[in-house]
């Protein structure tokens, strides 16, 4: 018998808090597992970092940072559309307009992140996907 309803609510809260702590601990442990070996440059998941960080990385390492996210994007497009990046870009270039080359593709990431510092980089990848005609992204 639960004579004190507040007591029951307290238990629920405690269980929720414990679950949240466990989830956070798991996420922290997972993040620690994929942490780069000491000394290496870059981040372990370039598609999941804040655009603000990406913009800072681009300043001191423009080509490497751009390439890193483009590589992530190639995997993402392949997973969501079944097409390789080369095919996606070829199809987009067939539509006319300025060619989609490395500079233009990765320049979109830079521009998106500069305009949306609070977003995460995967959103910049999705935005580029839409511009390339990948509706599913």
């Amino acid at each position, binding site marked *: 018998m639960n004579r004190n309803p507040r007591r029951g609510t307290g238990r629920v809260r405690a269980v929720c808090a414990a679950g949240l702590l466990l989830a956070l601990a798991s996420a922290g442990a997972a*993040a620690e597992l994929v942490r*780069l*070996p000491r000394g*290496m440059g870059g*981040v372990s998941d370039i598609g999941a970092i804040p655009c603000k*960080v990406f913009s800072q*990385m681009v300043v*001191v390492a423009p080509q490497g940072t751009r390439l890193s996210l483009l590589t992530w994007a190639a995997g993402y497009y392949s997973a969501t559309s079944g097409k390789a990046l080369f095919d996606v870009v070829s199809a987009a270039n067939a539509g006319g307009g300025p060619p989609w080359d490395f500079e233009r593709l990765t320049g979109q990431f830079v521009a998106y992140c500069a305009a949306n510092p609070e977003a995460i980089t995967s959103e910049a990848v999705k935005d580029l996907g839409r511009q390339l005609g990948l509706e599913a992204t």
Partner: protein
Amino acid sequence: MSTSVNAPLAGKSKLWQPPIVGIVTFVLMFVGVGLAHTMMVLIEHGLGRDTTLAISPLLGFSGIVMLWLGIRSKSENFQTWIGFFGGIIVWMCWVEFFFMWYGRENWGMLPRMDGPDGLRVSGTWPEYMIMGSTVGILLMMLCFYTFDKDTRCNMFLWFQRRLGLQDSLGPSTKTAKDRNYAIITFMETFFVTWFCYAWNLLCFDPALVGDDLLFKGINLASVFVATIWSGYCFTRLIQFKRTSTALRYAIPVGNVMWVNVEILEKFDMVNAIWVDPWSYTLEMSVIFGAFLVLVALLVLAPKKPSEVGGRRRQGASA
């Protein structure tokens, strides 16, 4: 630089006596390290990064032209100044900007990240990651000075004494008169800068020292060593009477002391205003103005005849 400038005043100035000569040259070199950082930032932003990286080999060649002029000069003082500025220019353009191009553009490297979540861009940018890998080359090059009987650098002479090399190497075949201080100062500036960079970069490398207790311990030990080392050298520097000799000696003293600044900056205990001159325009202008005044004072300071092309003092060394 005229060979007759101030020669009659040599040794008669009441101001340009120990410890003033040593103090002024130390402050000049210490501040100069910070301003060299500022100069790089200003060049990079003034010309644009792409232009800077494209013309840096040519800019660096101007340092070699300066060296050529210095070596042709008969004035030890002029040789020292030109060797110093030539060395700085060549270091900036042929090492820093060139490594920057290789790391940031050509090889597409990524910066080292730090912070609790690994999402903070650390100060170890691609060019510094490359520079850290040159330690072996640096040590190999320093072997030349360690085993060269003609070296006059006090540190290498100390090594030679401790290693029992002086008898084997024999007496130096060069006198002060045979030495050209432009190339000596040029190489000294280059190697001292390289050495101090390598020192800091090795002590900051998480692959070597981690990022916790060992990192703190190693870097605090560095602060201790750098302070003692530069402090000891400073006590010697303030006994110098000749501005040219003091200038050469102050190069390592100022640079080794600067090792502390880099560490304190790494510990977030110092705000590096010298790499952000736009945010600290007034402060950096004042520091730059003070630097120029110190340079002018040293250029105009009375010189001994041996410093301005007259008889060279026997044993004058860097």
